[in-house]
Structure formats: C-alpha cells, structure tokens
C-alpha cells in the first residue's frame, strides 16, 4: 500500500487548498452571521432594534407545531421519493448499460427532467395536474374518477409532490449509477459469465456490492437535496391547505423573506442543520457497516 513518503507528501495540500479556501470564504460568513443572529430577535420589518434573547428562538421553533408538521411533511416526501428514485434509477441504468433497444434515444430523454429548473417543473406540473384543464384530469375522467382535487386535498397533494420529485430526480440516479456501471472492470463479469452464474445472482453478488459505495453517496446527496424542496410546493399549493403541504424550506422562506424574521429563521436553519448532520452521521455509519459486510 502507500508508504510513509506518500502519506506525508506535501503536494496533497496543493490539491486540496483551492477547493477548501473557496468553500470556506463563501460559507464562513453566512455561518457566523446566522449563528449570532439566531440568538437575537432580529426583524427587518418593522424596524425594531435587535435584542439578545438567548435560546428563545430555538425554544419557539422546537415547540412550534408548524415546525414539526413541516418536518414530517418534508420527511414523508423526501424518503418516499428517494426510495422510488433509487429503485427506478438503478433499474433504468442497468437497462441502459445492457444496451436495451433504443438506448441512445433513452439516454438523452431520460436525462432531461433533471436539467429543467425546479420552478419550471413546478409550473409545468401545475398545468398538467390542473383539476379542470389538465391532461391528467382527462386521463382520470377516462378512468371514471374525474376532477380529483389534486392540489387541494393534502394526501393527494403530497402524492403529486412525490411523483414530481421522482420524475425530476430519477435521472440523477440513473446518470450516476450508469457511470458507475461503466466504470466497473469487465473481467469480473466475463469470469462470471464463463462460470454460468445467472443474472439475478450476478447482480446481487457482484454488481450491487461493487456499486454500494456509489449508491450510498447518491442516496445521501438526494436525501440532503430533497430536504430543501421548495419550488414545487410554492408553485403548486403555496403550502396549503393550511400548512398541510408546507415543507421546511418553505416555512423558512416565509419566515425569512416575507416576514423578515431573521432571528427565528436563523435558529430554524441551525436546528435543520443539526438534524441533518445527526441523521447524516447515523446514515453514513450504518452504510459503512453495510459496506464492510459486503466487501
């Protein structure tokens, strides 16, 4: 493996410092600002002077029903859609990798949804799911349902949001898993074929374990990004009815950009950050153990 000389090679700093510095410079001030403001009551409007309130903002958030409600809503949408994204994305990647008929067309079309701006996707979805003038409604009428309140009935609205997230982000998984599949050394598979191991076992014993690190990374990113879903909700339901479909970022957005209640929003951001970090650490530890089992 690596020798001592390699381990302490000074050039490693040259490799990592540019990235490190750029990220640090851009993110350190927001962090400091948010941290200090979260302990104060800072409102831009009405222009009250900031005053130190200690942990009040945090207490308010943690005891607010709206916070827990939005966390629950966000978690439901994210976990369900990421599960779909991963399963579908992986399957599609496999199909593309094995050159299913028409692969070259699929490759382009499958990737498209991911490249469309979320606000755009939301507007399109609003058109498509319109309960009176949209094509989905026509399909439902054909099936005998007709005029379902897609966007105003909480359960249906959440299902619509999950499908939109799945539609948009499955390509993300497909793309990365495909790259992963293509990076796998082909000798192993040739050997397996010679040994006449069936495709099912080939998948579970070879492909899946080899791609496990990548899968973990992909799911992790999707979960983190998914937690920040806001555009689709904002455009489709506005968070309603009531706060039934309000997600965490939408809640933060209303607090921060409409009411300019910056103290509260900063506290909310930190609570959110802590939750995600805790969750992320647990997830990665569990994933690491899973990988060791397979490796």
């Amino acid at each position, binding site marked *: 493996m690596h020798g001592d000389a390699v381990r302490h090679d000074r050039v490693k700093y040259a490799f990592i410092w540019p990235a490190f510095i750029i990220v640090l410079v851009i993110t350190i001030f927001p962090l400091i600002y*948010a941290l200090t403001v979260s302990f104060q009551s800072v409102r831009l409007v009405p222009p009250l002077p900031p005053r130190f309130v200690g942990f009040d903002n945090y207490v308010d958030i943690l005891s607010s029903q709206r916070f827990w409600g939005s966390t629950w809503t966000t978690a439901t949408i994210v976990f369900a859609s990421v599960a779909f994204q991963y399963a579908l994305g992986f399957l599609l990647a496999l199909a593309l990798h094995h050159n299913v008929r028409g692969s070259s067309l699929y490759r382009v079309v499958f990737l498209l949804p991911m490249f469309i701006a979320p606000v755009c996707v939301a507007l399109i979805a609003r058109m498509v799911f319109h309960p009176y003038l949209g094509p989905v409604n026509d399909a439902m009428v054909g099936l005998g349902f007709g005029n379902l309140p897609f966007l105003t009935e909480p359960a249906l609205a959440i299902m619509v949001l999950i499908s939109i997230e799945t539609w948009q982000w499955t390509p993300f998984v497909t793309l990365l898993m495909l790259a992963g599949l293509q990076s796998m050394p082909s000798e192993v598979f040739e050997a397996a074929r010679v040994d006449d191991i069936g495709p099912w076992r080939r998948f579970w014993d070879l492909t899946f374990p080899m791609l496990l690190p990548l899968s973990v990374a992909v799911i992790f990113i999707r979960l983190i990004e998914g937690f920040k879903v806001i555009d689709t909700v904002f455009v489709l339901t506005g968070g309603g009815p009531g706060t039934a479909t309000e997600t965490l970022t939408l809640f933060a957005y209303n607090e921060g*950009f409409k009411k300019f209640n910056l103290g509260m929003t900063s506290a909310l951001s930190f609570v959110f950050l802590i939750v995600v970090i805790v969750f992320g650490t647990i997830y990665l530890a569990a994933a690491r153990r899973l990988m060791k089992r397979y490796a």
Partner: protein
Amino acid sequence: MENRSLRTIGLVGCLVWLFFSFFPLYWVFVTAFKPPLAVSQGATYIPFIDFQPTLQAFRDAFSGIRGDFFGPIVASISISVVATALSVFLGAMAAYSLVRFEFRIRLMSGLMFGVISIGGFVLLNGTFDIDVPYALLIVLVLALVVSIWMNKFALPGPVLGNNDVTFWFVSQRMFPPIVSAFALFLLYAEVGRAGFPLLDSYLGMVLAYTAFGLPFSVWLMRDFFSTVPVEVEEAAQVDNIGRMRIFIQIVLPMSLPGLLATSMIVLAFIWNEFLFALLLTSGDWQTLPILLAGQQSSRGDEWWAISVAALIAIIPMVVIAAILGRMMRSGLLSGSIK
C-alpha cells in the same frame, strides 16, 4: 432464455418510463404553440387536429414584452459553464487528494478554528466596529494560522480523517439556503462598500456558484477515483513523474465517465439555482430561473407564455444532455480503463 425475458422486461420498463418522462416535455412543447382559447377551454393534445398552432407566444417573448430574454440566457450560460468547469476541476483535485493521501486534523484545532473565527469576528465587528470584510479577513487568517500551528502538537481528543473532511464539504449543502443567501448578500454588499463590487457582477456569481458545486464534485469524484487502480499511478511515480502531471494525464482520463456525470450534475444544479441568483444579481446578470419565476404573472397563468419561457430555458440543456448522453454510450468510455 432468461436473458431474453429480462431484456423484454427491460424494454417495456424503458418504454413506460420514456412515456412518463417525456409526456410533460411534450406538453410544454405543444402548449407553447397554443392560442389562449385552446388552453382555457380544456386540455388539447395534438396540433392541427385539436387546435391551430400559432407563433404568437414566441413573438411576444422575443419582442421583450415579457421581459428581456437574451440577457438572462447569456448570463446563465457564461456563469454556469465557467463555474461548473472550475468547480469540477478543483473538486476533482480535492477528491484525488482525499483518496490518495491521508489527512489528520485534530478535533481540538478544528474547534479552535471555530472559536477564533466566530468569537473573533463578533469581537472585531460588534465591539470594535471594524467593517465586515476586514474583520472577516483578519479573523480567517488568524484562525487558520493558529489552528494549523496547533495541529502540530499532540492535542487531546479524537483525530479527524479523510472521511470527516469529505463530510465537512458535503455539510455545506445541508444548510437551508434562506439565511445563507441573505448573509452572503450582506457580505457582498459590505465588500462592495469597501470598494470591490461583488453584487450583480460576474466574479461574484462565479465565485458563489463554484463554492456550491464543490461539495458535489468532491463527494462524487471521490467514489469514482477510488475505482481507478493505483498501480498505474505507482508505475508512473517510479518514473519520477510529478503528481500533478499524473493527475491530469493519467487519472482524469481514466475516470472520464464519472467526470462527465459529475459535470452534468453540477451544471444542472448551477443552471437551475434560483435563490442566490435572485439576491446577488440585479439588472446586469439576471439568470434564467429568475425570469422563469416571473412568468407566473398575476395576469393569470398564461400557460402558453410560460411554456415558451420554459422551452427557451430547456433547450441549451437539451443540447448538452444530448452531447454528453451520447458520450456515455456503453463501451466507449469504459474501454479507457484499459
């Protein structure tokens, strides 16, 4: 045999997904050509049969009634491409070092960095009223120097390794963008006041967006690099070729699928980013997502106009997706491993 039935299932699955994926895009495309009545009186599907297509929506868009389109298009393309390139290259470099080398950072010195930077900033800015950019600069340099120096000593507490460094990179994406957008706006405004305009500037946007893309690049490229066999590099090292040359001439080409995939992902995120673009730009560098959001006008969701705007925003992405998608044809790139 089983292969054939699997292939059929695969084919059917792909076709179903193709329909599901493609239908909304088709809808947008067709709606852009619809006259208003073809929208407000129920869903219509096929041009020339259900309705008479018209170019009016396109004419409206390009005549500038609904907002200047050309400016944001140019802004989006130039900012996104450069920020993506920077972010992927620098991120790949960082990922490479995280895979091939070992970093050891003591938790204590990390904490010390945090304490000095945060406490120092509050002190300098709050108590001594030093301007934000200068306070920040002083504090950063000081904290970095002190914590690096401290790292040399055998401090108590756990030692953080490569995985934790990577986690730090990714954790930057976990922070909800609302407050960080506002804070970054504040920072840019302050720096602008100190004489270096960052708001509504090309440099400011590229800097911010590069910082956004880096977590993705680092995280994703780390996995792709770990599949690159290390023997090739070791062989090159024996020949005394510098690390950087090895990186650029050997490692990068070998991980091309991953590199391309990561580039596409970073590009997609930067291209579609809305919140920071809204706050950090004004008249000169407004990007496409802001323009798109504005199509949800109070005049009524004029779907034909929205569709035209959406198409204009999508087309550059379609081109890129087509180019890169074809480069991912199975076998074309994986052969480079040999």
